[in-house]
């Protein structure tokens, strides 16, 4: 796929945006208890911290999560995993829930620049830390080189594991990793792809490493 092809693609993920915004009005009354920051962080484009006084969640505690450079002041149940907080409370749905038990890697995000599994972290553990999700890597107009490489190498099929794969791959660029494919495979083994796009995933990562 050439760069021209990439540029000719639709400029924004319209399906996702449609689901988020239509969901926020249609289902607001149903989901309000679980997504207190829904409207502001999903639809609002303000740079000011999104704030939620929080609905009546029993035992909810205040937390400030810094996600993709933006502070989110939230009220959350202490049991909330970082994954559920990112997806359900802050409504950044690029991070995926696969197994929810640390066995698949779909939920991989960066905390202070290092890749971790957001399903095996409590959101409360990361008060004040720098969290990056796939939405923070790039935009459809200005993709991170790893995102562009995954597109160019067709490094996915259904796409469900892809954001986790990309978050892992971006972190790998700064980790001790040998030059060969085997080293990449070993360091990517925590990201399972049920479609079996592994060969192209390795190619996409190696392409970015060669250019670096």
């Amino acid at each position, binding site marked *: 796929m050439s760069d021209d092809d990439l540029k000719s693609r639709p400029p924004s993920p319209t399906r996702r945006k449609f689901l988020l915004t239509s969901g926020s009005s249609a289902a607001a009354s149903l989901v309000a208890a679980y997504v207190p920051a829904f409207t502001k962080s999903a639809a609002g484009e303000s740079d000011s911290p999104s704030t939620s006084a929080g609905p009546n969640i029993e*035992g909810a*505690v205040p937390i400030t999560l810094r996600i993709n450079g933006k502070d989110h002041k939230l009220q959350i149940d*202490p*049991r909330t*995993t970082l994954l559920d907080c990112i997806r359900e409370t802050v409504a950044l749905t690029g991070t995926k829930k696969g197994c*929810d*038990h*640390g066995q698949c*890697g779909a939920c*991989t995000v960066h905390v202070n620049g*290092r*890749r*971790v*599994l957001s*399903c*095996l*972290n*409590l959101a*409360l*553990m990361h008060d004040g830390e720098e969290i990056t999700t796939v939405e923070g890597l790039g935009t459809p107009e200005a993709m991170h080189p790893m995102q562009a490489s995954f597109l160019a190498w067709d490094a996915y099929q259904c796409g469900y594991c892809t954001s986790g794969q990309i978050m*892992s791959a971006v*972190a*790998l660029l700064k*980790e*001790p990793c040998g030059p060969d494919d085997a080293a990449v*495979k*070993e*360091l*990517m*083994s*925590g*990201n399972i792809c049920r479609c079996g796009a592994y060969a192209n995933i390795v190619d996409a990562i190696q392409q970015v490493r060669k250019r670096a």
Partner: protein
Amino acid sequence: MHIFEFIRPKDSAAAIAAAAQSKTAQQGADVRFMGGGTTLIDLMKLNVETPDRVLDINRLPLDKIEATPDGGLKIGATVRNSDLANHPKVQRDYLVLSQAILNGASAQIRNMATVGGNLLQRTRCMYFRDTAMPCNKREPGSGCPAITGSNRTLAILGASEHCIATNPSDMCVAMAVLEATIHIQGSKGSRAIPISDFHLLPGSTPNRETVLEPGDLITHVTLPRPIAGSKQVYLKLRDRASYEFALVSAAVVLTIASGNITRARIALGGVGTKPWRSPEAEAALTSKVANDATFRQGAEAALRGAKPQSENGFKIELAKRCLAYALHTAAVS
């Protein structure tokens, strides 16, 4: 998940005081320290762990790796597995530890998991993890369905009629051959426990896995000065090439002079109810000629006490070959 109170203690003393109120530091603890969360949060989601209070110790100053005055290494309890494995001094002097850690879990989990947490890693026995099933480790007296059930991955060394669960840690197997010391601060002061005495055999109380008492906080681990000229290998055999627990693993620290083994430290993983140091293998190897026949004799000695279950008899021969090949690899390295 059981509801809990999340607390971030301001210092170790506050953490210890809060944890000392728990009924037990073993299975069923109502207060838990939270490190990386990779075991604990998983088990809390399964309702295997149901603490009322979770103490986040990640911001206590326990995250340093430092040289000790006697030439060894001091490793803080919240040092991440990846930082330990990739530390230059560990890669140079304690290679078996670096190899063991890098053979475990995934890059993400190694970025999260702490040294203290890895010492307390819980078994992967499916009956332990499933609250619909009996399990003597989870609910003392309820029985062990693994003994007549699915036990292919379970222990052949150190098991009892009450529990055959395998200790899953790779790091602990390497620390066993490196003769690490676990440093604990508790409400009654501090103490140091050799790693060989830290984990308990299941016996009739498989719910008790370590010597820890309520309030005990692992603060750091020390490694003695490295053995000059030693050859170190960690070999792990598993059902897939990466991101899988060991069926069998072997940690080897070998010193060879003029073709003879002058010192051997051996431990096995994936086969024992605790990280399995083998003094029998060490005795069988010491002062012998370093060749494959000797290595096989050492492996035979290590597995002499092995007792297979219905599905895991293959582990005995696999463990022998694993250890013999690890010794061979070390000798020619």
